[in-house]
């Protein structure tokens, strides 16, 4: 689930000039006829009886034939325009869209953490009048919503942009990398937390791992699978874990911090290039693939699970925000036709990441077009759809042909990690040989030399020993 800053059917904020937010004819005509605006308190006489309530905005994705009201009981309902015989205004109440701020306490003995906002809500409050969810972001607002943060550190916040996860792209990656460089070089901070929608968190985790190298402090991406307006949200806990990691851990890496199990227990710190969102809606959706996570984290401690780069006192971060967006991922399917590749060539793409079957295969019908691509200077790299395991293109003839054509095997790089890396590499060079060298030179665990046996764990439900384990472990 994606973080949303407010419900899709409530436009926000209310200050706009539009007094008929979201209404179109025939609903709009009815409102105009009775001189009624959104946020008016009304009595609607209908063929079915009297409805009293507050006129709410109408979602543009819903039909145009209903007027939505919030009734005194707090429930909303839609009244069809055809059943309306009269609307009378009896009052007005506009939504309030501010959060009372409490000053975030400063304690010079505490660590300093900066929270960068990219969009979505980490904490929020509800406007019950309108049903809108108002995001909390400034330190004062966050302190009101998640007061535990003040026990951990001194917090400053910067809102870089307000975009949903799916709208994160090159422009945002570059701004983010430059701001992180500035923070590390110029500010006295102990760690950075980045609030991010979850859908593309692993893409951002990857690209930042290439753009920002040799960070002296923890850089932690965090989000939530259940939005923060819900009482059982994972947002506050994830944020607390992330802020704790940024302030107190000695892990100087680019990480994703999200729930370990679906239960309210520990969070996991994943390497930015090895992590992947593996379930569309579970809280415990983020998993490190082909390796183990860096550490487990609670609101007051963390337990490392493997080696990592240690925090340093210097400011010697290396930032290179290069990016070329003329790169694509090609998810291979049986019977794929060469015209797919031809169109990429014709449209000026400079890089192709193939997610091939098995050990890194595509059918031979594509060979001719792939050769044409390589000959045109396009860098073509191979990853595996299986996600776990290495590309091994020497095992079968089909793989050897592809190697001969100049397709570059990317070891056990995840398709998304390879995609972000190729964008970054081609932002620096268009030379195929150089690009190949850079792709295969490990920067931040995107390729690991060894795959530990516990790096691949997809338990199969139904098997007695698995069921036994599940019954003794909080999921």
């Amino acid at each position: 689930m994606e973080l949303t800053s407010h419900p899709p059917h409530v436009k926000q904020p209310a200050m706009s000039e539009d007094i008929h937010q979201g209404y179109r004819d025939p609903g709009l005509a009815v409102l105009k006829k009775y001189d009624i605006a959104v946020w008016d308190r009304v009595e609607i006489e209908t063929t079915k009886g009297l409805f009293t309530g507050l006129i709410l905005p109408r979602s543009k994705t819903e039909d145009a034939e209903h007027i939505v009201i919030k009734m005194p009981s707090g429930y909303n309902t839609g009244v069809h325009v055809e059943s309306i015989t009269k609307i009378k205004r009896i009052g007005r109440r506009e939504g309030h869209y501010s959060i009372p701020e409490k000053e975030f306490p400063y304690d010079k003995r505490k660590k300093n953490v900066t929270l960068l906002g990219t969009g979505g809500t980490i904490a929020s409050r509800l406007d019950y009048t309108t049903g809108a969810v108002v995001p909390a972001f400034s330190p004062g607002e966050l302190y009101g919503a998640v007061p535990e943060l003040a026990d951990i550190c001194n917090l400053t916040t910067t809102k870089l942009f307000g975009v949903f996860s799916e709208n994160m792209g090159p422009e945002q990656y570059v701004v983010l990398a430059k701001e992180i460089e500035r923070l590390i070089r110029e500010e006295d901070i102990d760690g950075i937390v980045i609030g991010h929608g979850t859908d593309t968190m692993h893409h951002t985790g990857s690209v930042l791992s290439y753009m920002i190298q040799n960070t002296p402090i923890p850089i932690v991406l965090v989000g939530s699978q259940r939005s923060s307006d819900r009482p059982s949200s994972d947002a506050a806990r994830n944020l607390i874990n992330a802020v704790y990691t940024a302030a107190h851990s000695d892990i100087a890496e680019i990480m994703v911090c999200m729930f370990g199990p679906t239960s309210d227990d520990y969070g996991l710190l994943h390497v930015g290039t090895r992590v992947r969102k593996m379930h569309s809606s579970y809280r415990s959706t983020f998993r490190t693939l082909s390796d183990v996570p860096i550490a487990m984290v609670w609101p007051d401690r963390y337990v490392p699970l493997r080696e990592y780069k240690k925090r340093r006192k210097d400011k010697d971060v290396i930032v290179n925000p290069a990016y070329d967006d003329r790169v694509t991922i090609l998810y291979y399917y049986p019977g794929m036709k060469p015209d797919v590749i031809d169109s990429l060539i014709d449209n000026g793409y400079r890089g192709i990441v193939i997610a091939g079957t098995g050990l890194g295969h595509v059918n031979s019908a594509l060979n001719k077009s792939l050769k044409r691509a390589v000959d045109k200077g396009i860098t073509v790299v191979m990853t595996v759809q299986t996600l776990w395991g290495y590309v091994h293109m020497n095992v079968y003839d089909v793989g050897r042909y592809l190697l001969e054509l100049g397709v570059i095997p990317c070891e056990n790089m995840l398709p998304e990690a390879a995609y972000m890396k190729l964008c970054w590499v081609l932002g620096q060079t268009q030379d195929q040989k150089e690009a190949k060298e850079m792709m295969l030179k490990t920067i931040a665990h995107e390729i690991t030399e060894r795959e530990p046996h516990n790096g691949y764990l997809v338990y199969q439900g139904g098997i007695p020993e698995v069921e036994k384990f599940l019954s003794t472990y909080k999921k």
Partner: protein
Amino acid sequence: MTDEMKKLGFKCGMEIHQQLLTEKKLFCRCPAGLYSTDHHAEVLRHMRPTLSEMGVYDGCALMEFKTKKDILYLLNKKTVCTYEMDDTPPFPINQQALDVAIEIALLTGCSIVDEMHIARKQYLDGSIPTGFQRTGIVGINGSIPFGNKKIEVTQLSIEEDSCRERSDDKHLIKFRTDRLGMPLIEVVTDACFKTPEEAGEGVRHIGRLLRATGHVRRGLGAVRQDVNVSIEGGSRVEIKGVPRYQLIPALTRNEALRQKALLDIRKELKKRKLTKDNLKFFDCDLTDELKNSASPPLRDAIRNGHRIRGIKFEKLSGILRHPTQPGKTFASELAGRVRVIACLDEIPNIYHTDSYPEYPRNHIDLKTLRLSLKLNCDDSDVGIVVWGPDADTVTAINEIRNRIFEAFDGVPCETRQSLRNGLSDFERILPGADRMYPDTDHPPVRIANDRVLKIKDALPEPTYEVEKRLEEHGVPKDTLKSLAISDYIALIDKLHKEGRDMKLVGRILGQTVRSLKRQGVESDKVTGDRWAELITACDEKKIPSKHIEGLVTNLVAYPERSVEDIVLSVCEKIPAPS
């Protein structure tokens, strides 16, 4: 009694929750109506209050947060999927359930809404893993004839059922999730019931009407009432989850009297010239002073490394002894808060110098407590002690102080749980109105007119009308209620048209069927034609009533034998009519 209630200004309204008989749950495809006693996995969650409009927390929400409970959900893979765990968004609403809800809304005289919007109603007690219940209004402004008055139905909503609590021990509450998500409707009435008896009858009346659809679940837990009671000068208090209408008269009467007692206490405080501002109190740690206490709970507390904490209120002597419910005093109001909010749930959980008359001997030396150096109570003061883990005793003392302060206002708005003996105990602060917000996971649901008309055409006859007609037919009064919700209505109409003896009809289809059922003889499979044949034969042959039970037993036992045959064999000694 009734006059007494009228004098108090007794008012009562109902929220009737009735599970619907559907194959699947409301927002996922799990089976509905399947209960389990074992589980295969557990999920641990916590609830966090969300800031409300003014940036403050709802009182009820805050109370639940203060309890700092670990909430453990027990999952059985046959009855729940990832939806109930709140790890998958809702699937489109169950249309079968919506049809039944529309049917019931029409039957209760409601106007059906054009477009239903799903709302989230917050519950932070853990009974729903999301922290809110998905609910939507199907109909409003209904009305049900009830004797010579009307029960106004203010709204009818369709909603998902909550978890079943398995245990609640200190800071850990466990829930079974099988019931979670089953479709139910909530019928909300106005506060039209003016006596406890009328309230009970009203619930029975509505319950029978719902059953007439044949589309609602039956059995224990399938119907639960939230009963709202107030008296003149009192407050709305909700008694939650009352399973049977028979309990309602005693519960509501006791609640009315409790409210009266709380108003009397307020009067007494006024008489003593006490106010929230001038009330003097003092609290302190008494662990050292009471470490040699002979009282078993205090001794255990010391042994477990717990703390003992006390609070003194000046000039409050006697107030804690004031009776509130039969066998209970104002002290139990304090104990209720301590039990729920501070999670000190082993009773007794407080001692006080006003003394429960029922304190077992040796439980505490009240004199020691009164003369405790730190509390130093004189005869006009009251001292109260609590014991338990340090943080919990701090919460407990705070809650005791809060509750004492509320006594100056009279009756606090509360949700109370019903106890078996017609009494009730504190469950939580009554949630405020501000706890509803739109469910952004589910689009609005259009309820088209032709769908409503189709359901309207097939609507069952309301039970109160069936009853009236059967009474006019001459069906005996003692069988009216049960026959009006039986499968025999069409048969009775037919027999009435044929001029059969309605007393006989009542005796056979009412009394005899019921009495045989109690003995384990199920007569459901007997066809209408065979019943008609038997009743006609009994009527025409004037068969004495002593044979009737035997005849029905045989009718059930030998479906292949003709009615004539059965009559002959059972009544062979009867001389043929001359």
